[in-house]
């Protein structure tokens, strides 16, 4: 089966690798303050630190290797995304810009099927929009990637990012930044700050739920009618009751949100995408039943490599058979419309 991998993660090897991509004064500051490059992002049991690069990506490569069946893949630069939890807003923009330039030069050179989601910090949306437009014409830029600050996605704070992404026909990939719920300025989880990694990972799926509701009811898709938002790395089982409830509340409260002209589930089918990857210990037959209840456009296969080593075929067992081609390829092709010509089933 032909695959488009909507979520895999490159690895910037060191702080030193980024310095040539910065203004000299900023490079001096990064060195002087002993800036520590974020480890990929913390995944339970799968932390990959630049000082321990042995697994599973080879030390000399920036991007995880692709299977023969992969026609195209979207690199989501997870090391840029923790910047949502930093205090120095100006530094986040400099860091993201340097990291993007490094990845465009090094990661994309490793395999022509690789495409980059330009990573931006949500702190200064105008700077993020400038960064998006700076790279939008690159033939292998296919998306924008960011993580969340403690402002709902429907708030006008994000408008410059959405406007630039919409103008450039780039989907916006939302991925955990790694500091949600534990760093001031990032979204809280469950209204509190979780006190353990287990609590945090358990609650992480609250973020896409709150933000999908915000995107829909705040009318983001009225303002940006072709915008696609991909929530990567958050799972999808929670989306079924969310959309059912969102439809019900829309019917009851439409008079409060007349700008929402369609049922939320219909808007989700057009605008919201969720990645589906490794099943873990979830029983495939149960996952299939859940997946079948979502609009068929919503799910995209995302390998989450190098944090997961599962083969696509093993992950797609959790998708109803009549939807597998959609999830493996077709939905991503329709979402990442900037994928280079020639990516096809």
């Amino acid at each position, binding site marked *: 089966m032909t695959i488009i991998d909507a979520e895999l993660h490159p690895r910037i090897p060191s702080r030193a690798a980024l310095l040539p991509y910065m203004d000299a004064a900023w490079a001096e500051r990064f060195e002087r303050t002993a800036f520590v490059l974020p480890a990929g992002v913390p995944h339970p049991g799968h932390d990959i630190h630049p000082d321990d690069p042995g697994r599973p990506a080879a030390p000399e490569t920036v991007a995880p290797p692709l299977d023969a069946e992969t026609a195209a893949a979207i690199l989501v630069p997870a090391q840029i995304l923790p910047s949502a939890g930093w205090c120095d807003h100006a530094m986040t923009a400099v860091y993201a810009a340097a990291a993007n330039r490094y990845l465009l030069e090094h990661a994309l050179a490793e395999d022509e099927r690789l495409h980059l989601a330009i990573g931006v910090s949500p702190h200064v949306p105008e700077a993020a929009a400038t960064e998006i437009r700076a790279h939008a014409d690159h033939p292998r830029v296919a998306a924008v990637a960011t993580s969340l600050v403690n402002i709902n996605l429907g708030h006008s704070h994000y408008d410059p990012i959405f406007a630039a992404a919409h103008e450039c026909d780039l989907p916006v990939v939302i991925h955990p930044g790694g500091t949600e719920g534990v760093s001031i300025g990032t979204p809280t989880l469950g209204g509190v700050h979780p006190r353990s990694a287990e609590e945090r990972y358990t609650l992480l799926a609250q973020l896409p739920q709150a933000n999908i509701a915000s995107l829909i009811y*705040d*009318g*983001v898709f009225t*303002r940006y009618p072709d915008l696609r938002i991909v929530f990567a790395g958050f799972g999808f089982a929670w989306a079924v009751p969310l959309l059912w409830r969102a439809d019900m509340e829309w019917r*009851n*409260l439409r*008079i409060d949100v*007349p*700008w929402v002209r369609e049922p939320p589930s219909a808007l989700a089918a057009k605008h919201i995408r969720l990645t589906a990857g490794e099943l873990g210990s979830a029983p495939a037959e149960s996952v299939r039943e859940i997946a079948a209840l979502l609009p068929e456009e919503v799910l995209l296969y995302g390998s989450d490599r190098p944090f997961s080593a599962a083969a696509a075929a093993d992950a797609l067992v959790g998708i109803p058979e009549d939807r597998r081609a959609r999830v493996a390829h077709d939905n991503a092709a329709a979402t990442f419309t900037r994928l280079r010509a020639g990516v096809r089933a």
Partner: protein
Amino acid sequence: MSTVTPRPVRRVHAGSAEEFPLDEFRVVEVPGGSIGVVRTESGFYAVRNRCPHMGADMCGNPVTKTTLPAGPFEYRLDEDSCVVRCPWHRWEFRIDDGRSIGGITRKRLVTYDVVVEDGQVYVLRGGGRRAAAEEGEDE
């Protein structure tokens, strides 16, 4: 092929026209339920006093206007609208044809024709599509 015998149209007396305050329902009991009759600026209308969603009484409040689709956080009142709003879940239906506002459901509020003769208001019940709708069928 089956044939359907149309039900005869029945007239229900709802009162003297001058007894109807503007936009407020007068509810008349009929076998199997009740009907709300209202005088608006565009004339008399009658609807079944039962929401097609979950059965709430629909005619306890005046008819009202609704909001039109607009930009985010822009409210625009449809000055020409006249709707019945359910008190339970705020589903809205047009007073003239019973269709839902905003396409939230395909169910319709049952409507009836009204005639005024010699200053007296009559609701016409039964017959055709209305009879089917009255049984709770969707559009």
